[in-house]
């Protein structure tokens, strides 16, 4: 079932009604399990995929039971290796095929198995394995594990909720339903997500696609450069809004995945605001774990280890998306950006001293420049995320060549085009200059509106009209609902 669809809206409504009518925790848990099964069923294409699904779930659960019974490092290493091997195979990492002679029916490039949300299942399993080994995991059972892995609001594309957090809500399912105001806020969040994915995101994507094949010119190349990150944000944060809203209606609080990423002042800050649950997973189970070992064994070289391991962590975050040359470049650029950010911070600390560093970090001009530079670096990275290496380089070449002959480039356009771009840039820079003020005004406004049920109902009605129009257009022109891009990872 597509998350941004009329079917999902009705599905959510039905589940919420049945769920809140049901007395007692066990019945509600059964209802949630059935809802997850109903949601998942159309996403698994064939019997062989179901078999792999079952094998994955049973195998990972047995590994957890084994580590619980014998909490030894070797068992954890075997569990991690097995989980990653199955992941690489099912994700068709072609590099494996060059080294392992698979029989033809098991050929990594040809197998038809599709396990939806595989990456997210593996992330959940690996963190459980490590936490189980270190005695930090809440009690497990097949029923709890199955529902944690397959709950319909996180199974396809996260957010990566930690097991102990899930269990806390799972055990509180007999609590009273949320109040009307809270329910309205969750429905508004769902519809906001649908508008982001189905209306705004779809429009930006169509603009991007229309410009993609005209890239030798400056205008289309710039649209490609800026539009794809905007589309990606709308698509993924919209999906996150939908599932956080749906989970909230059932009493589950999911972790946030985005926090105003376009206000980041460096690459590390950006990844602390974008796909937050993935970044924090990598921070905890890749970076922290490895840096702790390195800094303990080589305290004199800890700083250099931090650069190398930050590069590795962000590089892994990049290539997790895929192994094409574009994703590898995406990972390399993000890794370099993270390591350079850390090195720059160390240089500033060493040269400026505490009081001047404080003044530097709180200087408004420095902050503005940092945000603008980070924004462009992130757009550069996502250019390689969006397309293969050759096309990304062609777009960059077009921008570079046009900028090199700038006065003539501008004269090729009518005056309106550059004037609009400059006006938008000035407005954005002014908003950034006073972003603290704008943010606090926005937050206060949201707080006041959020406190009044009448205003919330009005907003919800307006959103319903938008979403109804959006789905009517989809139905009238026989269009598929826009897919959530991160489902394929």
């Amino acid at each position, binding site marked *: 079932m597509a998350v941004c669809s009329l079917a999902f809206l009705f599905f959510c409504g039905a589940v919420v009604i049945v769920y809140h009518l049901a007395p007692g925790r066990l019945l509600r848990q059964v209802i949630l399990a059935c809802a997850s099964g109903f949601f998942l069923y159309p996403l698994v294409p064939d019997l062989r995929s179901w078999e792999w699904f079952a094998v994955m779930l049973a195998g990972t659960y047995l590994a957890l039971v084994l580590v619980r019974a014998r909490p030894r490092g070797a068992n954890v290493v075997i569990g991690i290796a097995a989980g990653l091997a199955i992941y690489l195979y099912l994700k068709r990492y072609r590099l494996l095929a060059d080294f392992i002679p698979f029989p033809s029916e098991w050929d990594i490039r040809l197998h038809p198995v599709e396990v939806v949300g595989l990456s997210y299942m593996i992330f959940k399993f690996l963190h459980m394995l490590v936490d189980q080994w270190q005695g930090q995991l809440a009690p497990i059972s097949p029923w709890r594990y199955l529902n944690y892995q397959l709950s319909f609001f996180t199974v396809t594309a996260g957010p990566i909720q930690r097991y102990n957090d899930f269990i806390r809500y799972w055990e509180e399912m007999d609590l009273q339903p949320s109040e009307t105001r809270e329910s309205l806020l969750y429905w508004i969040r769902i519809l906001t997500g649908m508008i982001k994915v189905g209306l705004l995101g779809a429009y930006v994507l169509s603009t991007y696609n229309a410009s993609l094949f005209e890239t030798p010119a400056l205008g289309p190349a710039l649209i490609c450069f800026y539009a794809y990150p905007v589309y990606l944000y709308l698509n993924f944060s919209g999906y996150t809004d939908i599932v956080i809203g749906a989970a909230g209606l059932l009493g589950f609080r999911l972790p946030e995945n985005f926090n105003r990423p376009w206000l980041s002042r460096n690459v590390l800050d950006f990844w602390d605001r974008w796909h937050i649950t993935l970044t924090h997973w990598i921070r905890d189970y890749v970076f*922290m774990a490895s840096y*702790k070992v390195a*800094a303990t064994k080589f305290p004199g070289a800890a700083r250099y280890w931090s650069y190398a391991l930050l590069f590795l962590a962000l590089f892994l975050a990049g290539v997790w998306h895929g192994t094409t040359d574009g994703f590898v470049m995406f990972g390399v650029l993000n890794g370099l950006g993270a390591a350079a950010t850390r090195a720059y*911070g160390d240089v500033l600390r060493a040269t400026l001293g505490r009081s001047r560093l404080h003044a530097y970090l709180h200087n408004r001009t420095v902050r503005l420049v940092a945000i603008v530079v980070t924004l462009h670096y992130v757009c550069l990275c996502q250019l390689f995320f969006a397309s293969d290496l050759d096309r990304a380089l062609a777009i960059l070449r077009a921008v570079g060549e046009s900028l090199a002959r700038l006065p003539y480039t501008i004269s090729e356009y009518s005056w309106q085009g550059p004037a609009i771009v400059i006006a938008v840039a000035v407005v954005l820079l002014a908003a950034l200059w006073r972003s603290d003020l704008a943010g606090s005004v926005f937050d206060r406004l949201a707080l006041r509106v959020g406190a009044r049920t009448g205003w919330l109902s009005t907003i919800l009605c307006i959103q319903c009209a938008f979403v109804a129009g959006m789905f009517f257009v989809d139905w009238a022109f026989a269009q598929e609902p826009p897919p959530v891009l991160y489902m394929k990872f």
Partner: protein
Amino acid sequence: MNPLRDVRAELQEIFRQVFDDPTIILKDEMTAADVEGWDSVTHIDLLIAVERAMGIKFATAEMSRLKEPDQNIGSFIRLIESKLQAG
């Protein structure tokens, strides 16, 4: 755990060394956002220094939890005290 052990004072000294700031005074409600330079790397440096000074070990989930927005110095001190009591 030695009942006379002043965990807060010991932790404050570690903070001053790790963040190279002799003016830091720890209060229960302080969070990572209140200490300049408390990022993921210095977080680990801090935990390694605490582990060495106090003879305890932090699990990955505990290290992660301490970075959450709802955690503060008060919860950090309580975690250390519970580990010291557990021996």
